[in-house]
């Protein structure tokens, strides 16, 4: 199946759509807390982005399996949010344990960002969107991965801008979070330029 050019193209469009067109932060306005909190420095933005990418891809796969094989056959769709968040918390915990053992260096880089991911609403939102968009397993994984890459992309772009803004002469009443929110709004407007790009399929 994956050799079929049409399938490959549709996969490509899912990733492209998640990264640029429906960027989790700028278009879906999800996960603003880590977006504002961890974007002060470029290095921390990288760390948070890497950790989120890993966890979100895992969470999308696991939640698809739970939804398709456990909840849907028993008509328990109303338990989605609850079971997804429990699964995500467990995956984050598991990831931290495994990384701590296998790669202390990576654990030091990701550090406190790993547990923080549990409270990132984008990580819960994307699996729920997957269900709403009726994605299959591969599409779920790709959508999760694409969304996380989009999140990382937004975080890194924004961190770069914020580092430059440190030295800028901002009017007193706009300093700090105020100018950061205005900048985020302008970037959100800029990302609207991608709208419709994924409609070519």
């Amino acid at each position, binding site marked *: 199946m994956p050799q079929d050019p049409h399938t490959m193209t549709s996969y490509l469009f899912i990733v492209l759509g998640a990264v640029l067109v429906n960027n989790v932060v700028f278009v879906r306005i999800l996960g603003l807390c880590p977006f504002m909190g961890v974007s002060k420095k470029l290095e921390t933005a990288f760390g948070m982005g890497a950790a989120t990418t890993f966890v979100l891809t895992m969470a999308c796969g696991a939640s698809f399996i739970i939804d398709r094989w456990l*909840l849907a056959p028993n008509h*328990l769709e109303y338990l989605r949010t609850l*079971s997804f968040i*429990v699964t995500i918390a*467990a995956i984050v915990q598991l990831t931290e*344990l495994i990384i701590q*053992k296998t790669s202390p260096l990576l654990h030091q880089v990701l550090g406190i960002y790993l547990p923080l991911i549990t409270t990132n609403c984008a990580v819960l939102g994307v699996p729920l969107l997957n269900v709403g968009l009726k994605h299959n397993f591969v599409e779920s994984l790709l959508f999760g991965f694409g969304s996380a890459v989009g999140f990382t992309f937004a975080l890194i772009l924004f961190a770069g801008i914020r580092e430059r803004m440190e030295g800028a002469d901002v009017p007193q009443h706009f300093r700090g979070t105020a100018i950061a929110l205005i900048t985020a709004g302008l970037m959100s407007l800029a990302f609207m330029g991608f709208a419709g790009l994924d409609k070519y399929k």
Partner: protein
Amino acid sequence: MLTAVLVMALGALVLGAALGYAAVRFRVEGDPLVEKIDAILPQTQCGQCGFPGCKPYAQAIAKGEADINQCPPGGEEGIRKLADLLGREVKPLSAEHGVEKAKSLAVIDENLCIGCTLCIQACPVDAIVGAAKQMHTIIAAQCTGCELCVPPCPVNCIDMQPIAETVETWKWKYPVVDIRPATARAA
């Protein structure tokens, strides 16, 4: 309803089992020596040893960067235990790090306290409660007697009161017997 409970229970069971297995399988061994040294130290977090707390001092001892006689609150007994654990010579407390005092407790004279919060910022164990321009007080059970709150107080309202020996606080004192060298008897 029953299926819902069963499904959630099954999910919790699987995830719990996976986490439990991972916790055992991927357990990271901390340095056991640091833990043992840290257990001997008095946990006053006073910083008199020159390190920011008991754990950093324990790490420094384990690495060989610090000597074992830098902890005044631990006193003679602490040094003796550390020497036993590490197989080193017992030595007197290093004078530059302070002198051994009776274990005491900080007490705020609440009539004098002006509510400046300086002692709250100094306390390493968060044993002082209070807010700006409100009277502060010390939680006796949490206070380690480190005296770090005494110097910042602008009105000198903090007193160190020695803890009287009661049935709860009494500790067996290590019997010290002077051993005279054999030559002393012969002479």
